[in-house]
C-alpha cells in the first residue's frame, strides 16, 4: 500500500468501514510511514471528538405537543382525502364521444390556466424577494420578526418559512395596519395551508387570488390588526 491509498482509508476506522484485508494492509503501511501515522493520530483524535458530539442526544422539548400537532395534521390529511374522491359513476356521464371531447377540452383549458397562474405567482414572489433584498439591505430574518405583532405567531404556529414570509410583508406595517402582499400570502398559504386554516377554523381553502379577501378577513379577526392587500400587487 502507498501513502495515497493509505490516506483514502485512514479516516475510515469505525467498525465495518474497512474490510479485514484493507485493515491489514493499512496497518502494515503505518508501521513504515511516519507521515501517515501522524495523520492517523489526528484521525483518532477526530473520532474522539465525534464520539463526544454523538453522545449528546438533542432534547425534544414538549414531545406531547409535537405528537398532537402530527396527529392533527394527519387527521386533516385524512379529511382532505375523504372529501376529494369523485363518485365513480360520475365518469359514466362522459362515456359518449362528443362529451368526452368537451370534457378533454375543459381539462386541457383548466390545466393551461393553472400553469399560467402558477407562473404569474412565481414571478410575483421572485420580484417581491428581490425588492425585499434591496429594501432591507443587511437586516436578518430575526430582526424582521419584531416588525409585526407577536399574536401573529398564533396564526402560524408551525412553519417558520411561512412565518418569515409574513414577517417580511409585516415590515410594511404602518399606522396599526399590516399591508400584506398578495403573492406572498399565497405562497405562505401553500406552505402551511392546513395548519393556518385549522387555526382559523376554516374547513377548506383554495390558494390563489380568489380566496385572498377571505384570508385577509380571517387574519384580521385572528390578529385584531387591520389587514389590507398591497394595491401595487
Amino acid at each position, binding site marked *: 500500500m502507498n501513502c495515497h491509498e493509505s490516506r483514502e482509508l485512514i479516516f475510515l476506522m469505525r467498525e465495518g468501514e474497512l474490510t479485514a484485508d484493507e485493515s491489514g494492509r493499512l496497518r502494515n503501511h503505518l508501521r513504515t510511514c511516519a507521515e501517515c501515522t501522524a495523520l492517523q493520530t489526528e484521525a483518532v483524535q477526530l473520532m474522539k471528538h465525534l464520539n463526544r*458530539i*454523538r453522545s449528546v442526544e438533542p432534547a425534544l422539548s414538549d414531545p406531547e405537543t409535537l405528537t398532537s400537532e*402530527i396527529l392533527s395534521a*394527519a387527521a386533516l390529511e385524512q379529511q382532505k382525502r375523504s372529501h376529494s374522491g369523485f363518485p365513480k359513476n360520475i365518469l359514466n356521464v362522459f362515456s359518449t364521444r362528443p362529451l368526452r371531447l368537451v370534457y378533454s377540452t375543459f381539462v386541457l383549458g383548466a390545466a393551461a390556466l393553472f400553469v399560467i397562474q402558477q407562473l404569474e405567482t412565481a414571478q410575483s414572489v421572485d420580484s417581491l424577494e428581490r425588492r425585499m433584498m434591496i429594501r432591507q439591505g443587511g437586516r436578518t430574518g430575526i430582526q424582521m420578526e419584531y416588525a409585526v405583532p407577536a399574536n401573529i405567531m398564533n396564526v402560524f404556529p408551525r412553519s417558520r418559512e411561512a412565518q418569515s414570509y409574513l414577517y417580511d410583508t409585516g415590515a410594511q406595517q404602518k399606522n396599526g395596519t399590516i399591508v400584506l402582499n398578495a403573492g406572498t400570502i399565497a405562497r405562505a398559504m401553500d406552505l402551511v395551508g392546513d395548519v393556518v386554516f385549522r387555526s382559523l377554523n376554516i374547513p377548506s381553502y383554495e390558494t390563489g387570488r380568489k380566496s385572498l379577501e377571505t384570508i385577509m378577513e380571517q387574519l384580521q379577526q385572528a390578529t385584531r390588526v387591520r389587514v389590507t392587500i398591497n394595491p401595487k400587487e
Partner: protein
Amino acid sequence: MNPRSTRVSDKEIVNLMNAACRGDSSAFAAVVRATQGLAFSLAFRFLSDEEDAKDVVQEAFVNVWKHLADFDPSKKFTTWLYAIVSNLSVDSLRSRKRRRTLLAAGSENRTDPIDPADIESIHANAELAAIIRRLTGDLPPTQKLVFTLRDLQDCSIAEVAEVTGLSVGSVKTNLHLARKRMKELLTPYEHMKEHPA
C-alpha cells in the same frame, strides 16, 4: 441504528404499522410517540435548528400517514422513516440557503477552526447546534447527510446506504471526505495545544 430514543421493538412497530394500515389511528399515534424522538434527532442534527427540525418531523409523519400502504414490513420502519426525514431535511436546508442568499445574511458557511474545548462543553441543544453547524456548514448536502447518519445518528454503513440510496462505496467516499474536512477544522487548535507559542 441508534436505540436511545425508542422503547418499542422493531417487531412491535411493524405490528402497529399493520394495525394503522387497517385504519387504527391509535396504532399510528403509538408509532409517532415511539419514533418521533429518532426523527427529531436526525432532523435536528442535520439542520442544527430545533423549529426547522420539528417542521420536518411533522411533515415526515404526515407523509408516513399518507403512504401507510407503501410500508414494507420486511424492512425496518426506522430506515423508511429516516429516508423520508432525510429527503425533507435536504429540501428544508436548500430552501433555507436560498432565502439566506436572497437576504444576503448567510452565516451557514463558517469555516473558522473549532476549539475542541467547545465540543467538551456541549450541554444543551443550542451548543450542540452551534458546533454541528460549524463542523458541517460548508459540506455538500450528500456528505453532510452521510456524515450525520453515520457519525451522529450511529447508523451502520449498510443502513446509511439504504436510507440515502447510495452504494456502500459511495457512502464510504462521502464519509471519508466529510471527516477529512472535520479534521481540517479541528487540527489548528490541536497543534496549538501541542506547540503553544
